[in-house]
Structure formats: C-alpha cells, structure tokens
C-alpha cells in the first residue's frame, strides 16, 4: 500500500540507508586517494519501480542500482600497450649507457689510447733498437694494450652476467604476479556471481597487476563475458586462463659463456617452450636484447679486433731478428693467447718468451745487425695502413666504427625512451582525470550525502509526528 505512514517511514529509512552507503563509498574513495591503481567508485542511485494504486502512479523512493568504478577501458588498454614500450626503451637506454661508458671520450686508458702508446713505443724502438730500456718499454706498452683488451672484455661479460641476474629476478617477480592474477580471476568469479555490483577493488588490483606484468614481458590481454581475463604472452603462449597460471623459467648457467634461455611452462605441465627469441618488449625484452644483441655484438667485435690486430702484428714480427743472444733467431710471435681456451680479447698477452728476454723482439731484417730497424718500421706502418674490411679501414678505424655504432644506438634509444615516457605520462594523466580521486569532489559528496541523511531523517521524524497525531486522535 502506498501513501501509508508505514510507506513513508520505509522510504525515509531506505533513503537513510542509501545516504549511509553514499558516505561509506565516499569514505572508501578518500582513504584510497593515494592508492596507486585505484579507480574511484560511484554510487548509482535510481528510482524504484513505480507502484500503481487506485487511479494514481506512485513513486517508491530510490535504491542503489550499483556501485561502479569510473574506469575507461580504452585508456587502460592503451596504457597496457604503452607501458611495454616505455619499460623496454628505458631499460635498453640504461643498458646502452653502461656499455658505452667503457669507451667514454674522457677516459685515458681505453684500447685506443693504448694503441697510441704502443705505436709510439715501437717508433722509439726504431730509433734505438740496441737499447734494452727501449725494448722493455715496448714490452710494457704491449702489456698495457693486452690489459685494456682483457679488461674491456671482462667489463662486457659483466654486463651480460648482470643482465642474466636481472632477468632471473624479473622472472621470479613476473611468476608471482601471474599467479596472483589467476587467483584474482577465481575470486572475482566467485564474488561476482549473483551480485549486481562489479567486484571493483579486485578488478583494480587485477588491472594493476596486469600492467606490472606488461612492464616486464610482452602480453596480450583478452576479457570474456564472465569478467575473466586471459593473458597471452610472447608468441601468444597462455600465461593466465581462468585461474590457471603458467610460469617462466630460466635455464641454469653451465659455463661462463653460456647465455641461458628463457622458457615458459604452460600451466605447470612438464613441457617447456623456448621463448628467448620471442620476448621482444618489456624489461625482459630489453635485457635480452642487451645481452644477446648489443653486448654480445660488442664482445664479438672486440674479439675480432684483438685477433685481427695480433695476427697481422705477429705476421710481420716473425720476420724480425733479435739482438745480442737473440741476434740470429727470428720466427717469434709477439702476441699470444689468440687460439684459446678463452676468447682472443680475453686471453691476449705478450709472449712470455719475449717478456723474459727483451732481446728477442724482432726489430731487424737481417741477422746480427743491432741497428737494423726495418722490421720495427714495418710494424709501425701497420697502425695506419688500411688493412681491414677489404683494405678500406685502419686498425683504429675499426675501433672507431665499433664505438660510434654503439654511441649512435645509445643516442637513438635515449630519444625513443624520452618520447615514450612523454606518451606514457600523458596516458597516465588521462587515466587519472577519469579514475582519480579528487578530494574536492569527495568533500562535495560528503556534504551531499550528509544533507541527504539529514533530510531523510526529517522525513522519518515527520512520519513519526504524524503517527503520534493519529494515535492522539483517540484518547
């Protein structure tokens, strides 16, 4: 029945209830104003179904339709895609910065500097081939050159090792998040079943986790009608489906030179799919690129440089005769260590026989001629003759090409990272403008619902007074 005092009382108390819910939700928003990934929630009130009575149609008050989060799916999708680019370019830029720092122009002990001092020590040898001190100086310069190769090689390998470590940590992190998303899928399905409201907080949490997973590895996200999210990873492998989760794993490292692969085990079955070449974006994509493309490429180039240089040097040096006790002996290599067990740049060193007896340095073209510097002059020419790359580049030219390739890659990645950061920040701002909590808004809401509460209680007290009046009708 409508328009009875009971009906009025009911409407008042329902309205009270609604306003309490409003303040509740507002309080929830305020306390989550600084929670990252939170979408503000709004109470949607609607009128109840009107009731027909007699010749009139009466309204029946209001009820809560649902509590919905303000959330723009389109922006969320864009953010998911952009975070992958942003984290990839940022990580790549940092990795390249580290690699290029081994060749910075303000360093004075790079391979190039040592080439210069080695060349000049040979020039001095040409002036005084009979002098033991000059020979010792050349050996020391040669040792310095080998050391710069060794340490550059070691530094590059360290970058690769560090990258492996970081990949391992990120794998642990991403596995945790994947498992959590699967769990949330299950919980959202349970809680959401039969309820009119969406499970807002859990969905916020799930969205945040998905973005964090996207930060690390390539993903594609699909949502179905039951609010379940399926995440497919690199090469469209299944990472999350329903409440099932896959795991990433990394092979153990067997040797120093072994670059372990990253594999995925779908839903914890015993089958592993090798994903190393399919992970292209996210932090892991960048780390794999640094490890397998940039650092490895640099390592290969340094090895080629060391081997190529030392071999051409030795080719000339074997023709040279020594002095004093070595005056009729030639055929010695100056540099050794080029054929293993390690890599050329790692193992290159001055031949121990020569270190032990500087007289063995072959400067002379013929036996028993102490002032003969023909071979040492030939050795000097080696440094500025174009012998490499099909006779177009000098030895320092090869080095210059190597580092300028690196520098240009670093520069380009820096610019990409800046551009991507700008886009990402703009998307974040857009999301915030839709989903973010503004304390001014919430303050106004508080006022709104409080007034509603006050007004609704007024309806109740009015109905109450009417009751009293009616009861007083009969004494």
């Amino acid at each position, binding site marked *: 029945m409508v328009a009875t005092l009971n009906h009025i009382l009911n409407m008042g108390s329902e309205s009270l209830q609604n306003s309490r819910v409003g303040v509740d939700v507002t309080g929830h928003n305020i306390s989550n*104003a*600084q929670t*990252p990934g939170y979408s503000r929630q709004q109470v949607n009130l609607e009128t109840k179904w009107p009731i027909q009575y007699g010749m009139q149609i009466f309204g029946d008050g209001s009820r809560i339709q649902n509590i919905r989060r303000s959330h723009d799916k389109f922006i969320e999708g864009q953010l998911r895609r952009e975070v992958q680019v942003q984290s990839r370019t940022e990580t790549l830029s940092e990795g*390249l*910065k580290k690699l*290029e*720092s081994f*060749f*910075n*122009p*303000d360093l004075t002990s790079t391979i*190039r500097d040592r080439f*210069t*001092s080695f*060349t*000049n020590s040979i*020039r*001095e040898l*040409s*002036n*005084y081939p*009979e002098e033991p001190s000059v020979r010792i100086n050349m050996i020391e310069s040669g040792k310095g050159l080998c050391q710069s190769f060794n340490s550059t090689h070691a530094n590059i390998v360290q970058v690769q090792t560090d990258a492996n470590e970081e990949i391992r940590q990120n794998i642990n992190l991403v596995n945790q998040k994947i498992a959590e998303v699967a769990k949330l899928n299950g919980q959202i399905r349970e809680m959401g079943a039969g309820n009119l409201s969406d499970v807002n907080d859990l969905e916020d949490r799930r969205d945040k986790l998905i973005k964090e997973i996207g930060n690390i590895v390539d993903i594609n996200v699909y949502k179905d009608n039951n609010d379940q999210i399926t995440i497919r990873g690199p090469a469209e492998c299944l990472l999350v489906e329903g409440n099932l989760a896959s795991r990433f794993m990394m092979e153990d490292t067997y040797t120093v030179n072994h670059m372990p692969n990253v594999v995925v085990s779908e839903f914890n079955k015993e089958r592993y799919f090798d994903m190393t070449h399919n992970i292209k974006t996210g932090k892991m994509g960048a780390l794999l690129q640094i490890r397998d493309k940039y650092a490895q490429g640099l390592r290969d180039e340094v090895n080629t440089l060391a081997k190529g240089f030392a071999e051409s040097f030795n080719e000339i040096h074997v023709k040279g005769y020594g002095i004093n006790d070595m005056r009729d002996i030639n055929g010695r290599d100056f540099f050794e260590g080029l054929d293993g067990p390690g890599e050329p740049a790692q193992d290159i060193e001055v031949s121990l026989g020569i270190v032990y007896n500087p007289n063995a340095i072959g400067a002379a073209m*013929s036996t028993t*001629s*102490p*002032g*003969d*510097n*023909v071979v040492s*002059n030939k050795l*000097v020419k080696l440094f*500025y003759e174009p012998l490499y790359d099909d006779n177009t580049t000098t030895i*320092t030219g090869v080095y*210059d090409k190597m*580092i*300028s390739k*690196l*520098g*240009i890659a*670093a*520069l380009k990645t*820096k610019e990409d990272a800046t551009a991507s950061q700008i886009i990402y*920040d703009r998307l*974040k*701002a*857009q999301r*915030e*403008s*839709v*989903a*973010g*909590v*503004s*304390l*001014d*808004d919430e*303050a*106004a809401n*508080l*006022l709104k619902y409080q007034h509603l509460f006050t007004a609704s209680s007024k309806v109740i007290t009015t109905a109450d007074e009417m009751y009293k009046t009616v009861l007083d009708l009969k004494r």
Partner: protein
Amino acid sequence: MAINPRISEQYRYGTTLDRIGTVKNIADDVNDTAISGRKLKRISDDPVATIRVLRNRTRITNLDQYRKSLDFGRGFLAKTEDALTSIYDSLIRAKELSIQQSNNIYDEPSRKAVAEEIRQILNHVIILGNTTYSDKYVFGGFQTTQPPVSPDGHYLGDDGYIFVQVDEDSFRPINVNGRTVFDVPGGLEGKRPPLVNILENMYDSLFAWDRDKLHQSMVDLDAAMNSVVTATASLGARRVALEDVSERLDRGESQLHSDNNNLEGADMVKSALDLKRAENALNFTLQASSKMLTPSLLEFLK
C-alpha cells in the same frame, strides 16, 4: 583530454613531483657541464664529434713522438756532418803535404817528419770514422754497436740505411753509407784502395821515398775526397728537410688543440648563464608547487 580535465589527488602530487624532477635534471646536467668544463661527456652526446676528438688526441700524442724522432735524426745528422767535415779538413792537409813533398826535393829527416804527420792524420781519420751519437756508431750502417773502421783500415760495417719516422708516412734516412767513405764503393773495386789504405800508402811512400807510389796515392786521395764531398752534400740536404718537417709539426699542433677545444670543451660563459637560469627555474618551480599543493575543499567544511 576533456576540455576541463578533472584533477585528481594522485595527478596533483604526481605531476608536481615530475615537474620538479625535470627541472632538477636540467640543473644537474648544467652543473655537470660547468664543473667538468666538457660538453662531450659520453659518446652518445655526439658520436661524430667523439671520433674527431679521439683522432685529434692520437695525433697530438704522436706529434710528441715525432718530435723526439726528429731531434734524434737531426742530432745524428749533425754529428755525422761534423765528422765528415773534420775528415775533409784532414784530407786537405794530407793533400797539401803530399803536393809539397812531390814538388820539392826535401831531405830525408823532413820527409820522415811529414810521414809522421800523415800517420797522425790517418789515426785521426780512424777515430772520426768511429764517431758515435747516442751510443750508436754513425758510419757503420746497421752495425751500430761496434766501431766500423778497424785500425788496419777495413770497413766492418754494413750497408744498412736507418730510417726514422718523422710524420705520418714520412720515413727519412739519417745515416751515410760508411762504405762510400771508408771502403771502396760498389763499381770501383780494384780502382782505388780504401781511404785508410790510401793514407797508409802515402805514409809508406814518404817514409821510404817512392815517387810513383806517392803520385798514385795522391790520385787516389782526390777520388776519396770526392766521395767525402758527395756524402756531406747529401747530409746537408737531409738536415734542411728535417728542419722543414719540424716547423710544420709545430704549426699543425695548435690547430689540433683548438679543434678539440671547440668540440669537447664547454663554453664557460654559456655555462654560467645556463646555471643561473636553471637555478631560477628550480626556485620558481618549487615555489609554484608549494602553492599548487594547497588545501582542498575538505579543509573549508566545518
């Protein structure tokens, strides 16, 4: 974005921090440039300029070595030239004496006295032939560690030419072939004896008077003196050429230094202005941010 976008709490704090961060980054970079005085701190700052800077630096270092080699070469040539000049002077004296003796009839004591003088000249020539520069015998070719002229006149050196690098792709020979002076140069074998033997013959012919032998040795002496003159002339030319190279190296160096400065050095005036500007920007941003993070509506509700 909507025309009037909503400003949420996280946006306010987030962007404020971002803006402060950006300004601080710029200030940091400007500081770094001003302190180090370099605008080229990493390869990626300017890859092309980096390569040029490195090449210039190598060239500057090489210049020092070229100067050392030049000094060595010039010293070697000077010492050799001195020795040859002294040898020539001695030979002239020997020639004078022999002309005197051949024209006039002197008695035996005076002839023997002249013979003694010839012997002195011979010894002097041997000593000059074994001149050293920086512990290297200059007339021995590649045999620089032992005296090339033996006491009995044999040339013990070899035919090596010592080349020294004084510039990119510029190798100069710095020694004289001792064989042309002290031994019989190729093609003239049998035509005249080595220099010391000529003087030896002269001595013999005066000590035990032999007119024909004296005449023969005078002819041989002329030929030997020709060799000395030829050798001296070629030396002189080489010395002049080295002076040229030295001047050219000096002129080139200052250009390299200024080139490098332009490429990698920071302009101090610009740095100072940038610093001031960055400081101001940081101050203003911080002030503006504090105004932005002011109260919300909540604080005005009772």
